[in-house]
């Protein structure tokens, strides 16, 4: 009985050692391709984040200029009126 168990365990161990060798694995070139792809994704993430910041800053600048323009138009009307009253 003990011999049978021992035989099974040894057979199992041999299968465990030999089985991975039969499974298909990516080669080094393919692994590098995956790493490069991951790096590109990380880099794109960073670029997008920077671009979004730039977009926000530009949107604020445009809004600021719009306000200045509206103020200037208002001032023009006010000055015209004051000059008439001088």
């Amino acid at each position, binding site marked *: 009985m003990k011999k049978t168990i021992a035989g099974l365990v040894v057979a199992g161990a041999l299968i465990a*050692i030999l089985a991975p060798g039969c499974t298909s694995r990516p080669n080094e070139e393919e692994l590098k391709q995956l790493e490069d792809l991951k790096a590109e994704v990380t880099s794109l993430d960073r670029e997008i984040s920077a671009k979004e910041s730039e977009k926000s800053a*530009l949107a604020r600048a*445009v809004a600021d200029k*719009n306000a200045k323009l509206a103020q200037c138009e208002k001032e023009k009307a006010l000055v015209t009126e*004051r000059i008439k009253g001088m």
Partner: protein
Amino acid sequence: MKFVHRLLLISALLLVSAAGIFAQEMTKEDWQKQINEYTAKRNDLRSKLSTLQAEVDKLKTEDADKAAAVKKCNEELLALVGANAAAEQAFAARLDQIDSKLNELSRLSNQDLWARKGELDNVQKMIDDARKDKLSTLPKNYDRIREQQNRLDALRNALASADLTKTYTVGTWAKDRDCLWNIAKKPSIYDNAFLWPKIWQGNRDQIKNPDVIKPGQKLKVPVKGDLTKEEKAAVRSYWSKKQAAAAPAAKPAAPEKK
């Protein structure tokens, strides 16, 4: 028997380590799955970046256009008042001058301000002149001038409501040598003996003869300043009376004719 035990132990160890190695290593299937996943993510990000770039470019153009529009509007605003940037700067310098004068006057005590109250009128003239300039209609100048006028009015009000009258209690001649001349000469009063008529005229209710003041008398000390017309007239009258009084005594009486 021992051999069987050892074999079992080694086999079990091999089984465990092989399982670990097997679990860590990537299969081709996993690799393909990750490649597909990251490729899709990259394509998605590239597309997003491209959209963002287009939006940023559009915003840059819009920002430049708005900047030009603001510049043009400001130029038109200056043209309305018939001025250019240099004239605007010169006008700002005039307003700076008014501010500086107001700052100087604001630092004075009420007594000193009273003595220089003529300068308040000068500042008022500067403000009025500035108001006549079309540049004063520009909101930033308009508000600034209004603020200056408020400050000037506040100074005038402070002067009007301040109790500017000091008092001085007359000491004895023996100890203090107090007479109107000497009192006016004191640095704490006018530091100028020639202003004594101010004290006299400010205390007509209790000084009938300026040569006679009594110890213990509380005299009002009017604000320092040039003698007014009335004060000058009072001095002239004082000296002419004094001369008239001294004349008969100075001239020896003519001997009586027999």
